């Protein structure tokens, strides 16, 4: 076996990890879509996709296949190469940002001292994909959608960043792993110190990812599909992927900064060590649920499918009981669980609330969120430096 040159060696694992993200994330995004449709159906007293695979579990694959083989339409009067490149800008920046998120301390994610800033800068480059896509379509609805979207994203980025600063002041570092370690050292999730910042961040994150009630850019009842009205097939799939990647990114940052990243609840209480078994238990439970519901399945292929699924879950759960695997997996499990809760809340909100109007959205951002976020930063600063301030005031 040839030895690996020392200059390249540190790059190998991140490279492999990046390739895995590139391959797995689209699938994950597809399943978030399925989750969204299922939750939506549940809220709306329906069943949702049921035909493709057991309980519609293969629906994302079918959708992806459909999008891939659709005709690729480029409008005649569009600006061809910008039209061609703008979904790529969106998706590449989003996927690189996903790659930079440390989902567990065991993953080979490059840790930079400007980690959070880097993720934010990548998402702000992603805006270009939206505005250029809308402009290059050379059509009114996409243009309106792009203008709305850009104004919205740029405005809410300010509130979002100021909300993050509140957490960063506690962590004292921009490194994403450093932030989680700071929470471990202080033995508390920052959400308990920064509830206001957390709420502001959550609202701004909804607006950042164009989710209801702030889904102005693609408000289908007003401007059809916003900036991606003219996009079809694979290009549309790229925008779609970028959108869901952005949801995962904002939820991940929320998890890292406010919810303790990959740490389990109360990471410093040794008595709760048994929580490390949670991934195994959840997987075994899922497997059991698959097998219990077996006799309600009408046809034989469906029964076999459920047996296979349940078996796979149980095998994975058993594997997680092995100490080395458990060690590697439980951080990832807690991180994913927190991100999943964030995504679920996004979906829940989307199907509960009506949509704000554009000017109201701007009002909320500029009149409420940004001043509140700045006030939060000031108060945090005062509280953190209270001793010096008291000393200076002569107490």
């Amino acid at each position, binding site marked *: 076996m040839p030895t690996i040159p020392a*200059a390249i060696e540190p790059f190998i694992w991140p490279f492999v990890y990046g390739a895995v993200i590139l391959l797995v994330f689209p699938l994950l995004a597809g399943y978030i879509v399925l989750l969204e449709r299922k939750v939506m159906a549940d809220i709306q007293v329906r069943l949702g996709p049921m035909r493709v695979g057991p309980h519609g579990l293969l629906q994302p694959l079918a959708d992806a296949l459909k999008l891939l083989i659709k005709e690729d339409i480029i409008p005649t009067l569009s600006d061809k190469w910008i039209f061609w490149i703008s979904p790529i800008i969106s998706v590449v920046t989003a996927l690189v940002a996903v790659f930079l998120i440390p989902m567990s301390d065991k993953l080979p994610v490059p840790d930079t001292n400007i980690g959070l*800033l880097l993720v*934010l*800068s990548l998402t702000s480059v992603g805006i270009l994909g939206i505005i250029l896509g809308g402009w290059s379509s050379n059509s009114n609805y996409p243009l309106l959608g792009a203008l709305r979207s850009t*104004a919205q994203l740029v405005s809410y980025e300010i509130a979002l960043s100021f909300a993050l600063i509140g957490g960063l002041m506690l962590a004292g570092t921009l490194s994403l792993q450093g932030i989680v370690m700071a929470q471990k050292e202080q033995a508390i999730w920052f959400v308990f110190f920064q509830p206001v910042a957390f709420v502001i961040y959550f609202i701004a994150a909804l607006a950042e990812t164009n989710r209801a009630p702030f889904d102005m850019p693609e408000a289908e009842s007003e401007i059809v599909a916003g900036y991606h009205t003219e996009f079809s097939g694979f290009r549309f799939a790229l925008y779609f992927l970028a959108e869901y990647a952005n949801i995962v990114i904002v939820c991940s940052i929320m998890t890292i900064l406010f919810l303790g990243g990959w740490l389990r609840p109360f990471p410093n209480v040794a008595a709760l060590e048994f929580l490390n078994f949670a991934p195994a238990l959840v997987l075994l439970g899922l497997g059991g649920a698959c097998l219990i519901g077996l006799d309600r399945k009408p046809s034989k292929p469906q029964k076999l499918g459920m047996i296979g699924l349940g078996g796979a879950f149980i095998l994975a759960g058993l594997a997680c009981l092995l100490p080395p695997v458990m060690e590697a997996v439980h951080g990832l499990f807690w991180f994913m669980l927190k991100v999943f809760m964030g995504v679920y809340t996004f979906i829940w909100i989307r199907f509960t609330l009506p949509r704000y109007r554009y000017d109201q959205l701007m009002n909320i951002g500029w009149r409420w969120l940004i001043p509140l976020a700045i006030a939060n930063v000031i108060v945090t600063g005062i509280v953190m430096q209270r001793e010096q301030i008291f000393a200076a005031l002569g107490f």
Partner: protein
Amino acid sequence: MQSVLPSLFFYALATMILVSAVVTITRRNAVHSVIWLISTLLGIAGLFLHQHAEFLAAVQVIVYIGGITVLFLFVIMLVNLDEAAKKKQFAGQWKIVVICAGALLAELGFFIFKGAEGFYFAEPAGGSLQPNTQLIALALYRDYLLPFELASLLLLVAMIGAVVLAKKDLK
């Protein structure tokens, strides 16, 4: 090997910056100009990373690409540029241009003639650039506090000025 890779990185980025910059100022369509400007700015951010100015690189991307170029695109889309694109793109001033380009070429010639040693700047001081973010924070909030406050005032004035200028009922 260790020293070749960074310099390759530099020359690749330098080529990207210069080519993109030339394309930027020659495009007929302002949106294309902005896209090439973005390419230039990205190259410069890469150079910053190359020189251990990570914080500045991130700020460059957030403020320039996420902010200023988006502002440019916004205005270009608000203002109908179809007419402008049909008109003549270049106007006089060629004499000054020739003088400037001549000066630059002279500098290049001198540079090639004398080599890098012809340019002596200074000995590296004994400082350090790491940890970058903290150092910049210290510089900004301790050494340059007054300029920093002035800069924020400038931004405020610019913001108000821009709002007043762009407001509709300008009389």
